[in-house]
C-alpha cells in the first residue's frame, strides 16, 4: 500500500480522503475544495509530499478532506506551525488554510511574521467575513455596523482588508479569487504553487448560513462582468461587459479612476497596464473602494526573493562546510579545561 503514482497519472481522487465532508449544504467551502482537488494533480507533486495545515474554523476543517499529510492545529497558529514544518523539511510542499477569523483575528501576528519572513508556505484565506464555526459573530473583515449575535447594535470596528494587510507586511505574493470562480481560482492556485516564498491568497467564500450573499454585489452572474476586474500581468486593466471600462492613473490626486474607453477621447493607451511586480500598483488595486470601483481579482503582486527556510538551510550547509559536521567530543572538550 504505497501512494506513489506517476505524476502525470495523478487524478482528483488521489487527493480525496475517506472522510465525509461536513460543511453546511451550500457552503462555499465545497466549491473551493473541489477546485483544489481538481487542480493539485496538475502540480506534479505527490500527495505524500504535501502537507495541509490549518487552524480552527469551518474553513480549517479542510485538511481532513485531503488525502495528503494534514495538521488541524489550534486557532490562529497554523502559520507558525507551518513555519516549523517547512524549516524542518524544506522538501515538503506546505499549504495553509485559514479563515478571516483564524488568520486575521487571533492569528494576525503569525500571519504577519510568516509573510515578512517569506517562509515558503502557500496560504489560502477563506474570507466569508464572519465567524462560521462559532455560529455567526462578526470578523475583522466584516463591514462597519454589522449586526451579529455579539453586536446586536452593529459592530463598531472598521474592517481590515486582507490583501492590503498582507502587502503592508511585505508579502511577496498576493492574490485574490472567489469560491465559485473555479477556472480563475485554479489559475491563482497554480501561480501560488509555482511561487517560491510565502504566497497569500484571499478567497471570497460565501457562508450561506450566517452571512449569505456577502459578496453577491460582485459575485453574482449578472454583475460580475461589471464588478470584477481580472488583472493579468502585462495586460491593460480593463473590465465590463465589453471590456470597455478601465483604470487610469490620476497623477495629480495620485489615485486611480474608472474611465470608459471611447468616451471623451479615452483610448486603450490611457489605461494602466497591470505590472504584478509593482508594489505601489498592487496597493492601489487592493485599496480601491468597492462601488465606485470594481473588485480586483487575480495575482495583484508577485516578487520572488529567497525564502526564510532556504536561507536557514543555507546557513546549516555553510556552517558544516566551514567548521565541519559537528563533533560532540570536540564540543564537550572545547574551551578552558583542566585534568585532575
Amino acid at each position, binding site marked *: 500500500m504505497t501512494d506513489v503514482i506517476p505524476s502525470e497519472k495523478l487524478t482528483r481522487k488521489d487527493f480525496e480522503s475517506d472522510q465525509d465532508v461536513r460543511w453546511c449544504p451550500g457552503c462555499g467551502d465545497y466549491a473551493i475544495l473541489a477546485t483544489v482537488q481538481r487542480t493539485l494533480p496538475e502540480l506534479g507533486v505527490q500527495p505524500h509530499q504535501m502537507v495541509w495545515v490549518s487552524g480552527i474554523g469551518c474553513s480549517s476543517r479542510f485538511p481532513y478532506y485531503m488525502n495528503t499529510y494534514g495538521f488541524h*492545529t489550534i486557532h490562529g497558529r497554523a502559520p507558525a506551525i507551518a513555519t516549523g514544518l517547512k524549516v*524542518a523539511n524544506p522538501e515538503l510542499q506546505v499549504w495553509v488554510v485559514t479563515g478571516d477569523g483564524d488568520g486575521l483575528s487571533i492569528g494576525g501576528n503569525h500571519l504577519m511574521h510568516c509573510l515578512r519572513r517569506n517562509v515558503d508556505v502557500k496560504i489560502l484565506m477563506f474570507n466569508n467575513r464572519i465567524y462560521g464555526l462559532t455560529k455567526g459573530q462578526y470578523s475583522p473583515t466584516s463591514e462597519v455596523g454589522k449586526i451579529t449575535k455579539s453586536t446586536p447594535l452593529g459592530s463598531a470596528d472598521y474592517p481590515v482588508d486582507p490583501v492590503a494587510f498582507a502587502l503592508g507586511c511585505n508579502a511577496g505574493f498576493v492574490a485574490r479569487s472567489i469560491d465559485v470562480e473555479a477556472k480563475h481560482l485554479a489559475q491563482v492556485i497554480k501561480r501560488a504553487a509555482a511561487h517560491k516564498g510565502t504566497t497569500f491568497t484571499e478567497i471570497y467564500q460565501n457562508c450561506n448560513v450566517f452571512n449569505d450573499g456577502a459578496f453577491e454585489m460582485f459575485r453574482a452572474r449578472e454583475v460580475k462582468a461589471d464588478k470584477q476586474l481580472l488583472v493579468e500581468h502585462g495586460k491593460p486593466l480593463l473590465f465590463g461587459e465589453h471590456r470597455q471600462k478601465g483604470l487610469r492613473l490620476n497623477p495629480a490626486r495620485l489615485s486611480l479612476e474608472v474611465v470608459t474607453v471611447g468616451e471623451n477621447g479615452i483610448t486603450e493607451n490611457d489605461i494602466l497596464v497591470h505590472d504584478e511586480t509593482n508594489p505601489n500598483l498592487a496597493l492601489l488595486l487592493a485599496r480601491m473602494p468597492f462601488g465606485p470601483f470594481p473588485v480586483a481579482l487575480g495575482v495583484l503582486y508577485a516578487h520572488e526573493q529567497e525564502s526564510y527556510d532556504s536561507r536557514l538551510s543555507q546557513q546549516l550547509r555553510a556552517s558544516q562546510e566551514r567548521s565541519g559536521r559537528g563533533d560532540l567530543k570536540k564540543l*564537550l*572538550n572545547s574551551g578552558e579545561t583542566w585534568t585532575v
Partner: protein
Amino acid sequence: MTTQSPAGTPASSSLHKAPHKLTGAIVRFAGDSGDGMQITGSQFTSTAALLGNDLATFPDFPAEIRAPAGTLYGVSGFQIHFASQDVFTPGDRPDVLVAMNPAALKVNLSALKPGGLLIMNSGAFNANNLKKAGYETNPIEDGSLGGYQVLSVDISRLTLLAVESAGLGTKEANRCKNFWTLGLMYWIYNRPLEPTLDWIEKKFGKTPDVALANSAALKAGHSYGETVEVSHERYEVGAATVAPGKYRNMSGNIATAWGLIAASELSGVPLVLGSYPITPASDVLHELSRHKNFGVSTVQAEDEISAICVAIGASYAGKLGITTTSGPGMALKTEGLGLAITTELPLVIVNIQRAGPSTGMPTKTEQADLLQAVYGRNGEAPVCVVAAATPGDCFYMAIEAARLALKYMTPVILLTDGYLGNGAEPWRIPDVSELAKFEVHRQTTPVEGFHPFMRDPETLARIWPIPGSPGLTHRIGGLEKDFDSGNISYSAKNHQKMSETRAAKIAGIARDIPDLQIEEGKDSGQLLVLGWGSPYGAIREAVRRSRARGLEVSHAHLRYMNPFPKNLQQLLSRFDRVLVPELNMGQLVKMLRSEFLIPAQSFAKIEGQPFTIDELEERIRQVLEA
C-alpha cells in the same frame, strides 16, 4: 559555618604561621556593573580550578542593562566558594568581601561573616559615590566597620600608577583596577598569576597596550601584597580529592544546550529550536544558535506561542522540536502544549524558572512553576516533567527529557531555574562513549493497517509517521480521536479510553526511569529531606553537617517530577518524617501529600534567592527536635 579565621575555614582548630592552611574559603567580588567583577570572578575561578580546588560560583547581575555608575541597583557581584574538600554551593556568607565602591559595600556588607576580611577601594569612596549609595558619613572613617578586618586601599590611584607606562587614557587605565584587585587576592590566597597572565594575552592580544596594562595591574596588586605596605596574613587552600578526569567549568544554560545537542547526536534526530528571548532563558537560544554545524536549526519566533508552534511543526515533520523559555513565556505556551499532548508529538519544553508571579523578578531564581508544569492546562493533559539538580546535571536531564519525549511520543518539560542556568560548577567532561545512544523509530515506510494513532503495546507510544513518506498520509489535530482509527470522534466511551490511555502512557514512564537514590545518609531513619531542583547543593551540605553533628537525617533528590520514581512511596515510608525544602510556597509537598497521604512538611522560601546551608541546618534541627 563558624570560624575564627577571617578568610576561611581553618584546616585545624589551631592556627599555624602564614600561609594558614584552610580547607576552604568563600570570596565575594562586588562593584559597579562597569568594574568588571564578573571577569575578576571567573579568572579567580579558573585559577582555583587549575589548582584542583573543588568549587562553586554564583554571579549576581543587576536587573538593569547598564545601570548608572555608583547606584545601588547597579551593583554586580560574583561569589566563589573553593575548597580542598567537596563543595556543593557557592556558600552562604563570604569570608572575604571585595567592595569596589560604596554601593557595593552597602548592598553586600550584611552578607559578610562577622570578623570577615573586608577589602575596599578607598579611592571610590568619594562624596558623590557615598551619596549615591545613601551613606551620610564615610564608613571607612566613621568606625561603623568595627566588626570586620578592614583592608582599605586606594586601588584606583595605585592602578593608575601601575599602568601609567602602558599609556592608556585615564578611562581605560581605570578599567584595569579589577586586575589589580585580583592580583592582591592571588597574593592573599597564595595563587599563581600565570594562568591569568596567559588569559590576558589571549584575550587582549589585539590591543597590546590594554594587555600590557592589565598584566601590569595584576602584578602590581600582587606585589602590593608582598611589599611592606601591608603586613597581612596569607592563606592556602589545597587541592581537593575530586574524581579524576578532565574538567571544565559548566553553567546550567550551556549544559542544557549541549545536552540537547548530545541527545540529537545520540538519537540521530536533528533539533529544531523555536524560542523567543527571555531572561534567564535566552542563553540557551544563543548557545544553540552557535552550533548549526550539528544540524541544529534555530528560529527566533515572534512570541512564545509561535515558538512552541514552530517546535510542534518540526516534530510533526519528524525532527525533535525544542522550545526554551521562562515565567510569562511558559504561561503563553499553555495552549500549544495541550495540542502537542493530544497529538502525541515528541517535544522538549525547557522552563528556566524565575521569580513570579507575572513578570515578577526576572533576574531572581524560584521553583514556583512545578504545579503549573504538572497541572496547568485545560482538560486532562498529562505530561512528563523532569528537573535538573545542578548546573552540570542540566546536561544529563536535557538528554533524559529528549530520550523520554522521543520514546513515548510526548512533550517533556525540563525544569531548571535562574540559579542553575547562570550558576556554574566544575564539570567532569563525560567520555562520549559513556553516553548511551537511544533508538528512535521514525516511520517512513508503509505499515499494515496503518493509522496515525497505532500504538506500541508496551510503551503506548503512538507511531511517528513522517510526512514525505509514501503510504503514510494522515491527518492529526486537536479534536479527540478515535482509538482505533485516529479519526475525529465524539464518542463517550472513546473519550474515556483515550483519556485513560494518555494518562497510562505517562504513568508508564515510571518503569523506564531510575529508582530514587539516597544522596547522603542512611536509607531509613528519623528524617528524610526530599528536595528537587537547584537546592541540591545546599540541602546536601546541610544534611552532611547535620549528620556530622550526629543527627539522623538523610537526603534524597527528585529529578523525575511526573511520573515519580516507582520506589518513591516505599522509600518515603522508611522515614519517620519527611521535610521538603522548595524555593516556592510548597508545591512538591502538595503532590506528595495527595499522592501518598503522608504528613510531609514544607520548608518554603520565596525570596528569589537560593537556600543558605545555615537555614537548612537550622530547620533540620527544629524538625528533629519537634
